[in-house]
């Protein structure tokens, strides 16, 4: 067992303090609001915890059905633990992500150490915008990245000590249950690993480990094999870039045979997406669309990044460079097959090799002797590192703690806390929440109102749980407690005593005047933009004004 020096203890303590602060400080209020994916996963975990069944009443599903798609189960099952401890709160749902991000700092530390790269990189990794941002969102992405990184670390250890290949296979296989994209990324990583290190892998002394690793892989993939031929295994096929490829190939078909036109278009589309994941622009120079005023990585990291790539290329025959290269080649493949430019939630694994390039570059920079005196040299780099660290923190504070909570509140489903408080304080009123313009409101309401899972399960179509993995059609209309989430039906809804809830485009002022609606609630985001408007109907006055023209005005109406 390697001894840890005093300096390392100090450094690890520093990482610990930074990690706790950066991942847990104001976790319940930043990100602002509660994103729909967080609500879906949180309520599913709550439902599992309370009843052993998901929101559709399916007992311990292998994948979770969510608004017409399927999500991997690992995060949801793990989230039951903090929900058990702290109840169904925003903090509980985000805890698993934040804790994963926190643990990841130390995995990166150990990884860098074993790659013989300065562990200084882990300090900057802990405050990298994209890592922190994802680590504080209560969905599966951060957890999946942590499990993937741990698996990659064990896989790297297996290059030198083949016995590590068995736990590496187990953890990588486990990561396929953490994020959908990793079902595809992990096989690519293993394929490239085989390609780059086949001599070690197939060596006679290693065959036993290889055999056990294959057994572990097969055994842990049994749930996926069970689902393989059901629609739940490939629910996001529509997100591939195939439409772009067809569009491009149409331009070529007058001059080139169809097969050639499609092949060339595929190569161009795939290559452009692939390169985009390593483009300095995407990584260091253009604002990250989720966070205002900051790129995915700090701008200054561009310099060590380029130096790092240069080093890897120069030392490409070394195991270390080969391993980083294999990660760089395999990790973006899945995301490159989709149509969106740089969807971080699918491309998290690619951050790992990118970060290794940066760490290698940093390592190289701090090893340059600028002064003959070792003491002055060291002092200079300590001061430089401190200045850069605080400069980065200021940029991060500006973006994440000042601008983000206000500018992006609307996109993080801000306002549901206030809305549900209003609903709770009016238990006798019936609410129709317009879902035509609001993204999946039912789950936010169920989450914040803490609707008992049994009640919710009874409100959904029972046939869904019978054909759970066959992706039965998703009905966006829900009815539970005193709430309905559906489109407002103006011909009927105004003739019933209830509260209509929507945004300012769903219910206009003219409509309110025309139908004698009374505004009962208005919720604005921190920028002052109206998010929710609630209007109470007045059927009596409407009927009087229209001289009972609607059949719904008649007392016998069963509406």
């Amino acid at each position, binding site marked *: 067992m390697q001894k840890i020096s005093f300096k390392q203890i100090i450094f690890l303590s520093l990482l610990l303090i930074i990690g706790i602060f950066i991942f847990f400080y104001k976790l319940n209020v930043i990100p602002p609001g509660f994103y729909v994916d967080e609500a879906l996963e949180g309520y599913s975990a709550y439902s599992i915890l309370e009843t052993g069944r998901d929101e559709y009443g399916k007992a311990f599903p292998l994948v979770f059905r969510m608004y017409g798609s399927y999500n991997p189960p690992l995060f949801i099952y793990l989230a039951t633990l903090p929900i058990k401890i702290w109840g169904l709160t925003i903090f509980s749902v985000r805890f698993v992500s934040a804790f994963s991000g926190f643990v990841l700092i130390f995995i990166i530390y150990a990884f860098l150490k074993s790659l013989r790269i300065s562990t200084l990189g882990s300090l900057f990794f802990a405050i990298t915008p994209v890592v922190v941002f994802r680590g504080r969102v209560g969905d599966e992405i951060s957890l999946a990245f942590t499990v993937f990184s741990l698996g990659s670390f064990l896989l790297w250890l297996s290059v030198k000590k083949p016995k590590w290949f068995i736990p590496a296979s187990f953890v990588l296989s486990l990561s396929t249950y953490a994020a959908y994209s990793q079902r595809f990324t992990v096989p690519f990583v293993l394929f490239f690993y085989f390609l780059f290190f086949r001599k070690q892998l197939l060596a006679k002394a290693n065959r036993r480990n290889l055999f056990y690793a294959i057994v572990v892989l097969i055994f842990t993939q049994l749930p996926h094999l069970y689902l393989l031929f059901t629609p739940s295994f490939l629910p996001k096929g529509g997100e591939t870039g195939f439409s772009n490829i067809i569009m491009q190939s149409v*331009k070529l078909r007058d*001059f*080139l045979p169809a097969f050639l036109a499609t092949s060339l278009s595929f*190569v161009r589309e795939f*290559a452009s997406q692939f390169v985009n994941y390593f483009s300095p*622009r995407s990584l260091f*120079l253009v604002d990250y669309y989720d966070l205002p005023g900051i790129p995915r990585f700090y701008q200054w990291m561009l310099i060590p990044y380029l130096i790092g790539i240069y080093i890897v*290329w120069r030392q490409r025959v070394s195991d270390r460079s080969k391993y980083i290269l294999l990660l760089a080649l395999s990790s973006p493949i899945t995301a490159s097959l989709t149509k969106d*430019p740089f969807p971080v939630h699918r491309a998290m694994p690619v951050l790992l090799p990118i970060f290794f390039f940066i760490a290698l570059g940093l390592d190289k920079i701090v090893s340059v002797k600028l002064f003959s005196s070792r003491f002055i040299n060291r002092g200079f780099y300590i001061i430089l590192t401190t200045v850069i660290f605080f400069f980065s923190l200021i940029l991060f504070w500006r973006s994440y703690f*000042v601008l983000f909570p206000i500018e992006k509140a609307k996109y993080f489903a801000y306002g549901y806390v206030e809305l549900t408080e209003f609903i709770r304080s009016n238990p006798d009123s019936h609410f129709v929440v317009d879902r035509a313009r609001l993204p999946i409101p039912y789950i936010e309401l169920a989450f914040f109102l803490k609707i008992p899972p049994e009640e919710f399960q009874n409100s959904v179509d029972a046939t869904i749980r019978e054909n759970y993995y066959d992706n039965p059609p998703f009905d966006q209309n829900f009815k539970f407690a005193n709430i309905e989430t559906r489109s407002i039906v103006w011909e009927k809804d105004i003739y019933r005593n209830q509260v209509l809830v929507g945004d300012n485009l769903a219910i206009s002022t003219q409509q309110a005047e025309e139908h004698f609606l009374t505004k009962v609630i208005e919720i604005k985001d921190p920028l002052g933009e109206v998010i929710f408007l609630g209007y109470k109907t007045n059927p009596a006055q409407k009927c009087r004004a229209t001289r009972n023209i609607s059949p719904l005005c008649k007392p016998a109406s069963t509406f």
Partner: protein
Amino acid sequence: MPMNFREKTFKAPAVKYFLFLLVVFGNLWIWRIFTLNFIVGTIVILSTYLILVSLKNSKLNKLLIICYLVLFLFSLKGFNLTNITKLDKQQEVLQIQRLKLYPPVKITIGTRTIWIPAAHWLEERPETLAFFRLQHNLGEVLDPNLYFFANHPNERVGITELEKFPYILLPLFLIGFFGINFRKNLNIIALGFVLPLIFLVVGNFPPNIEPFIIFPFIAACGVLGVEYAKSLVLKNKNSGVKIATTLVFILLYFLVVIQNFLSTKS
């Protein structure tokens, strides 16, 4: 070993020149430059050749310096150093909005309180504005997708993007770029890559201006990469494989150029 491949390949002049011509003329960008300005096109090609010669000898060619001086002069159109801290109307609105979002920041030492004007420093100061503008400008030019994929998948609104180089050249460009011995050729890299980059970033050019000053360096790296690939092919003892690989490469190269042309045309 660095650059060994060049020593081998430069021994066969006909092949060497064919590769040079293939890369330099086998792209849409050079023809766009020619249509914009024939003199610039000629100097750009001459500069590409001189960069290759300079890299071969690890010695900066004086004629190359003159070529770049001329190219810098031709690039001055659109150069606007003063604009670097100016905001457009939309950015001004955003700035005003953001200034209001900051909490009061103070440091208390004993009984003394120092108020820090964080909003002003991070949103208003000319240094901050210049920092973010330079970051944006650098992002515009330091993007392989701009040169090899007509900026796909990050196409800019209102700009007709051109697939400047065929994407088949991208891996070879990278091999060529990272194959350069940076220590030995620092002055050539400074002249051919760093200075043009600084010029384009600081110059604050409108997005429709062609960054042709960067062409010679990209093309030169492309040539080096192709030569490296050729040296790998030459290692194979089977001449049939050599010929087949070369033909397939040339065929694919032209197919990709045709693809670029057709994509751009429509």
